[in-house]
Structures are given as C-alpha cells and as structure tokens.
C-alpha cells in the first residue's frame, strides 16, 4: 500500500509551504467516475490524490474476485470490463510516475474548507488511523447504494440486496442460495438475474414492479442509445437462455420462513403499485435478491452545502452543471451522485470534470455522449420510480428500520397520532433511522410512511454529518478553528 500522508501534519494555510504541499485535485472514490476523472486529470498535468474505501480500484461496479480465488476471467461477471482495465492500467502508470497518489482503504468522513485549500479527513486501514489530505479542488465520486422498500419478512436471512448479491458474487464468488428469486424494480435486476444464473443458481422469476411499457413514451432517449438497447437485449437473451420468467407489474409482498427464507409471496400490482387482492401466489426459494434502484451517496456533498435536485426516480441527487461543478466553488462531482446513470455515464462525467478542473475545454464528443446517456438515465429512472401505494404491502407488524427493529405500525402511529410529517420527526419519536446504518436502508420507507398516503419515496436530502463510523479520538483531534458551519455539523447537532 502506498504510504499514507497521515504522518504529515495537515497543510497550514498560514504557512507558505502549506498550500504548495496540497494536491491540485483530491478525488474521493475510485469507482468508474473517480477513476476516469483521476487518470484524465493526471494526463492533463494535475497532481492528483485518490482516496477510496476499497482495497482495489473499481468501486461497487467493477468489483474484483479476491486475489486468492485465482479468477482467470473476471470479465465474465462484468459488462464493459475493458473500459475499466484500460483506466486501471493508466492509474498504475500515473502512480509509478508520481502523478497520482493512490490511497486505498481510506474512508473520507468529512471535508473542511481551509482558506485556499480543502482538507479531507479519512479513517484509514484496519486500525482506523486518522489521515488527512489537502487539495485545491475536490471531486466527489462517492457513487450510490441500493434503495430498499421493506415488506414483511425482509429481515430473514437469505433475503439480500439485489446489488448486494451481485457484489458478493463478483468479489467473493459466492451465492446466497441455489434457487434465488430476483425482485424489486429497475434494470439492475436483469443484470443480477443473468449473473446469478450464469454462476449456477436457478432463478424461478424476476419480479419487476414497473411495467416496461413505461419506456414506450421515451422513444427518443432510447433510439439515441443503441448501445443501451443492445445491452438490454443481452439481458433479455440471458433470461430466455436460462428460462427465467419476467413478471412485470408484480412485487414480492412477503418473505416466508423461520430461520431463513423458504418461499416468497408474489402479487400483481396496479399502476400505483398497490397489491391487487386475490393475485397472491407463493414461489418456493432459498434466497431472495431484492432492490428498487439506487440512491446517490451524498453525505460529504450535503455536508459541504452542495445544492441538490429531485431525480426522476424520486431520489435526491446533486444539482450539477454540465461540467460537474457543484454549487460550492472548488467542489466537483461525477457519476451516480448526480443521478443514477450507470458506469458508462460515470466514466464520461469523470472525464468531463477532469477537463473542466484542469481549465481545458471539454471535448465535444464527451459532452454529446453525456447528454445522450443522461437522457437515457432519466427515462429509465422515471419508468422505475416507485408508485405511491407500495406501502399497501407493509403490514403494521413488518419491521421497517432493520437496525432499531421498528415496525411499520409504530411509524404510522407517529405520523397519524403524533403528527410526525417527516423522517426526522419519526426518528426522534420511534428511533427509526437512528441505528448503525443511519437510515440508509429505511429512509425512503420512513419518509413515505410519514408523508401520508400520497407520498412515494420522496425525501429531503438525508443529512449525515459523518459518512462512516469515526473513532472519537479523531473528532477530538480536529483543529479547533473550524468554520462555524462545520462545527455545527459535528455529531449531536443532527441527532
């Protein structure tokens, strides 16, 4: 592992040597967007530091089988692997040449403005050592995590995230079961079902809550993206080849079992995602991979005050200029943080941002590609946006907050009897969202239950002052002269 800068004091802006020691650009995240941005910026002459939580570059999308597994064909589990492999090679070359400092195993938990530079504070390595990096510009490429809509039984062992199942398969070459139902909403489900089946699982059904006919009104966005259509056809072909049924406008409304999942109930939905009475049937299985699209991961950006917007899928994303600028000067972002769009778009946006940060004109081919892929992403997001009545399958005794074990009934009580109108008030009354995951899993559901019957999964941007658990000694070690707006965001202020 490259040496960490943690043994150096943070640059002091009052010290002439301080800013000189800062990198031109700090990139947070080495997934498709961050990796593309870093190698492009280094190629344009910037000194770049990359901080990533992973031990190897690639992010959640390009996950590698563990080295000891000796995988000869990791690309068998990936789409567009060469897009990654060329950039990973470029990263290694830039690191060797001293143009990029690559810091794997570094989880950035806060970014602080220090006059002419930014200071990024990270937790590093197994022992959680404190590390700091200073840079004149920051690019946040923090990606996304999966959106989950709860249902009775979703806490049973064997019920796993669809993206989670994919991640465990790519990195660990393992499956959660032999007969796996794939359910939720969004195009990721098709990729996951294809991967699980290719790896030997039987997939009795892909249960998709939306109707793919929703794409019909988006012909222009589809036709401008033939590669995306071909990708869709590939997934469709995989379903046919593995004899996987695709049930659209259906949802898993309950998982059954005692110590682990043994079967799921699948019901037909109306246009608003309300389960239709009399349509329920059971499908035996020993695992369920479920997810309803992805949620941009924005802690660092919202902590810095970056403006957000509502995405067509109902999630909150950063409001970015076409070149990746956030509303905070000196802070940039690329990829899923600006709205879910996939690895190809993330790579394109990373390259665009790198050009802009380097003060170069952005090649027209990149801006055209971005606009085309963004239009497709928006069409896709709108097609799979959760319907407002999905809470119809959420019985009062069903756990919503997995960490604090808060059932739907207690949240409804807080909303209906005690007047809670938002997730934050529900949290204070019920502890939903107050546990380890800080509402990442239950947030959309709590917001929907608190907002009344018409709300879907809309929510104000989640405010999490710390993006990961941080040892108290690191908080104690922060400089005392933080600007007031940052001091106000330390733990407790939002709890």
């Amino acid at each position, binding site marked *: 592992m490259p040496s960490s800068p943690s043994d150096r004091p943070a640059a002091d802006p009052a010290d002439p040597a301080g800013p000189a020691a800062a990198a031109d650009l700090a990139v947070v995240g080495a997934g498709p967007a961050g990796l593309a941005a870093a190698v492009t910026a280094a190629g344009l002459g910037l000194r770049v530091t990359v901080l990533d*939580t992973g031990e190897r570059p690639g992010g959640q999308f390009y996950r590698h089988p*563990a080295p000891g597994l000796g*995988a000869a064909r990791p690309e068998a589990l990936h789409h567009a692997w060469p897009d990654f492999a060329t950039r990973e090679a470029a990263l290694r070359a830039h690191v060797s040449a001293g143009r990029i400092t690559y810091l794997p195993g570094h989880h950035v938990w806060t970014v602080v403005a220090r006059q002419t530079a930014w200071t990024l504070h990270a937790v590093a390595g197994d022992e959680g050592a404190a590390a700091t990096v200073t840079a004149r510009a920051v690019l946040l490429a923090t990606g996304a995590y999966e959106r989950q809509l709860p249902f009775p039984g979703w806490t049973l062992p064997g019920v796993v995230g669809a993206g989670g199942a994919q991640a*465990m398969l790519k990195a660990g070459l393992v499956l959660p079961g032999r007969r796996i139902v794939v359910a939720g909403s969004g195009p990721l489900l098709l990729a996951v079902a294809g991967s699980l089946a290719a790896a030997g699982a039987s997939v009795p059904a892909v249960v998709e809550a939306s109707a793919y006919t929703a794409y019909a009104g988006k012909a222009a966005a589809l036709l401008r993206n033939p590669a995306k259509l071909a990708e869709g056809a590939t997934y469709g072909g995989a379903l046919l080849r593995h004899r996987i049924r695709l049930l659209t406008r259906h949802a898993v409304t309950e998982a059954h079992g005692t110590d*682990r999942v043994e079967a799921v109930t699948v019901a037909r939905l109306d246009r608003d995602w309300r389960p239709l009475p009399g349509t329920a049937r059971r499908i035996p299985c020993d695992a369920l991979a479920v997810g309803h699209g992805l949620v941009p991961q924005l802690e660092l950006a919202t902590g810095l005050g970056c403006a957000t917007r509502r995405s067509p899928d109902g999630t909150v994303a950063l409001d970015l200029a076409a070149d990746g600028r956030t509303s905070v000067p000196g802070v940039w972002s690329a990829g899923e943080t600006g709205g879910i769009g996939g690895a190809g778009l993330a790579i394109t946006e990373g390259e665009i941002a790198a050009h802009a940060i380097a003060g170069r004109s952005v090649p027209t081919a990149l801006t055209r590609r971005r606009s085309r892929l963004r239009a497709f992403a928006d069409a896709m997001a709108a097609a799979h946006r959760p319907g407002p009545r999905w809470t119809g399958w959420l019985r009062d005794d069903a756990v919503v907050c997995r960490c604090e074990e808060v059932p739907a009934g207690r949240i409804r009580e807080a909303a209906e009897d005690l007047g809670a109108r938002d997730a934050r008030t529900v949290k204070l009354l019920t502890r939903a969202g107050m546990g*380890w995951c800080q509402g990442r899993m239950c947030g959309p559901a709590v917001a929907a239950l608190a907002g009344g019957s018409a709300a879907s999964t809309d929510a104000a941007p989640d405010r999490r002052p710390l993006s990961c658990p941080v040892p108290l000694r690191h908080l104690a070690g922060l400089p005392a002269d933080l600007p007031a707006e940052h001091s106000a965001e330390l733990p407790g202020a939002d709890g």
Partner: protein
Amino acid sequence: MRSPRSLVGGSPASQYTVDFDGRALPAQEGQSIAAVLWSAGILAWRTTRDGGAPRGAFCGIGSCYDCLVTVNGRPNQRACLVPAQEGDTVTTQEGTGHAELAV
C-alpha cells in the same frame, strides 16, 4: 454443474481455514468473512439486540451494518468488508456485541 468459480475460470491459489463458532471453514485469500460464511451455506451470524432475530449480510457493500460479527474478539466488524485472515476466530455476535461489558 455450473458454479461461480467455473464461470470465472482459474483455480484458487491457496486455501486456509477460519474458525466460526468452533467450525473450521475453508477460506481463500482476500475473501470477505461474509463470503466465507456464504460459501459454507451460513447466512446468519448475528442476533439482534431487541428481538434476538438472526441476521447476516444484506447490502453486501458496507452500507447496512446488518452483517456485524465478532472477529478475534472485536465485535461490530462488517463481515462483508473484512477480509478473512488465516487463523481468524469468528463468533456469532449477540445483541450489541458488548455483553461482557454489562452495558
């Protein structure tokens, strides 16, 4: 029969064992503890502190904290992120993982 390993080809470089609640489980270098447990067919390695319900890996990427486990006596480690090291002792985590502190 198809398997994840046959799909990506190659063969494991080295194999060692990890102790899970007294069982010796095979592990490969770099595999997460969650992957080692899944490959042995084990899906739950934690009980919740309120209902005592079984839990294991859910999000698979370190976001949900459902897969918390005790590794070499250290509780609250995310099994989906922590690589299994040779000689590790992994134990089911009950409640907060701090029962011995009586808090």
